[in-house]
């Protein structure tokens, strides 16, 4: 099946935080207002450069996530563009009120980098794997939530977020991910990317799970099932038009995320679908369970996040199409 913007075969494996740093190295040179703040988190290439060249633009507040977020908000209040870096589980879990009250409430220009985001920070186990971040953050007014899928998209997200004025949280998963996109693909905050088109169903994926969704779409194509594949890199504001079009034009939707399906991408898509064009939806993601240690591959099997699981969900959701839609 024809794929849009996708490398054939998929490219280099790289950690999102590395890709983020590669872009940030360029951004800090161009924009003197960018300040990097850390909560005892590894610097990466951008942090090392700023430490050496612009030492008054880098701060580490230690293991104190609440202070990290609010200090960044104060810097934004004084006209700076602070990027905070700490583990997502502690930014969202321990500094939720600070994200809400100090960053989002006044629409301050704070950029919260959610490092080691999602369920697939494999080795670390349940205390460190965050299943709640999409659910918890998308309910906060003013806050933009972005979830890039590969190294190329991570760079485009980083640049776009630095240029956007307002509070943004960026999900960066831990495991290295394959390069999906060609460099020149068009990226716009808030606008889903259509990687494949088809009429039988739509897969809407976000973040690290896009590669698995792509594999699932390929598997289905071999069986003659043609799916539309959307990369929903911006969770908020959600590209509702793309979801409604997918519902109208394909009649069935499967969402895919490394986060809780309760209020996660699955919840968000389902809300849009039932209000606008009710069609069957199945949600692939974490089903009301905490995480555990293991390899990424083991966790994907245990939590039903594999390409096979996605393909299975697509077949199930197609079966649930009402007869008039099923016959299309």
């Amino acid at each position, binding site marked *: 099946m024809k794929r849009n913007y996708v490398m054939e075969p998929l490219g280099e494996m790289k950690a999102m935080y590395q890709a983020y740093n590669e872009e940030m190295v360029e951004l800090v040179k161009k924009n003197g207002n960018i300040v990097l703040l850390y909560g005892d988190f590894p610097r990466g290439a951008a942090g090392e450069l700023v430490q050496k060249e612009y030492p008054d633009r880098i701060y580490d507040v230690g293991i104190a996530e*609440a*202070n990290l977020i609010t*200090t960044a908000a*104060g*810097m934004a*209040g004084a006209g700076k563009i602070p990027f905070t870096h700490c583990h997502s589980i502690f930014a969202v879990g321990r500094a939720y009120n600070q994200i809400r009250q100090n960053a989002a409430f*006044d629409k301050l220009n704070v950029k919260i980098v959610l490092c080691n985001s999602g369920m697939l920070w494999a080795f670390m186990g349940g205390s460190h794997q965050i299943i709640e971040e999409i659910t918890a953050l998308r309910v906060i007014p003013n806050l933009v939530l972005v979830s890039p899928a590969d190294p190329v998209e991570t760079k485009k997200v980083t640049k776009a977020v630095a240029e956007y004025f307002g509070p943004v949280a960026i999900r960066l998963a831990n495991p290295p991910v394959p390069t999906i996109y060609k460099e020149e693909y068009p990226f716009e905050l808030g606008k889903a990317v259509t990687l494949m088109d088809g009429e039988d169903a739509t897969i809407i994926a976000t973040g690290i799970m896009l590669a698995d969704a792509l594999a699932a779409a390929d598997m289905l194509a071999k069986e003659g099932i043609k799916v539309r594949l959307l990369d929903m890199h911006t969770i908020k504001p959600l590209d509702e038009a793309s979801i409604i079009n997918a519902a109208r034009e394909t009649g069935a939707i499967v969402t895919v995320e490394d986060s809780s399906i309760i209020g996660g991408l699955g919840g968000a898509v389902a809300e849009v679908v039932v209000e606008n064009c009710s069609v069957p939806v199945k949600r692939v993601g974490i089903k009301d369970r905490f995480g555990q240690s293991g390899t990424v591959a083991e966790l994907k099997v245990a939590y039903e996040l594999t390409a096979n699981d996605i393909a299975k969900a697509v077949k199930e959701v197609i079966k649930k199409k009402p007869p008039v839609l099923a016959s299309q």
Partner: protein
Amino acid sequence: MAYDEKVIKKLEEKAKILRRDAVEMIRAGESGWMGGSFSQADIIAALMFCYMKHDPRNPQWEERDRLIVSKAHCCETVYAALGEAGYFSKKEYQSYGKFGATLQAHTERKVPGIEYSGGSLGEGLSFALGEALAARIDASEDASGRPVPRFRVFCIVGDGESNEGQVWEAVMAATHYKADNLVAIVDHNKFQSSGTVEERINMMPMAEKWQAFGWDTTEIDGHDFNEILNALEKADKVKGKPHAIIAHTIKCKGVPSFEHKNLHFCKLSDEMYAEAIEALK
């Protein structure tokens, strides 16, 4: 050092206006933060009408000193100071706390002169630290190579509020980064929402805690303008450390029959209102 009597007299008069206007706001809003508003009133008056560099005609002036009132359960005397200084019309007082009002029950940055949306306790000092650090970025340097910050940041912290762990996270970080353009003023009125500070979670001795974290620490009577102004001046002179001024204050200071009572959040009956206005003539 004793300050010019005229300066002290002016500040006493301003503080009285702030308390009086706060009473009017609490009356209009049918509720308010009487205790904290009154305990900090003299400190607010000293900062806004004597010490801080600010311009009511240009609230966004980049080099203005910042006042962060962390807990904001005391917003009336802050609003009163801004109204008195000319940041907005005193007519706004009548809609305080009402639907659609500019002056909400907790301070919000959308109000001219307000730097920080308070109300969630323990967070303001971190915000103040962020502002203080930002003031040093790309700043010029003095002869010894120290940055000369573009502005100073004053943060009023409640003593009950200091139960929150984040206060101490900010205290640690400010010392680490030698944020000497940051002044925390603890409104040590000895009460919190449901009882005395000592009853709830004893934080005494307060000054020693800040000192132990490496802050330049001064204890004062928070209702004595000479002591307030001297402490602020000292804070300006001591370099290389953030500054804590532990201001011993009296909850509801200014209306004798209310003093030392925990009128934290209250309504004013007709009798109380009349008594307050009489005392603040």
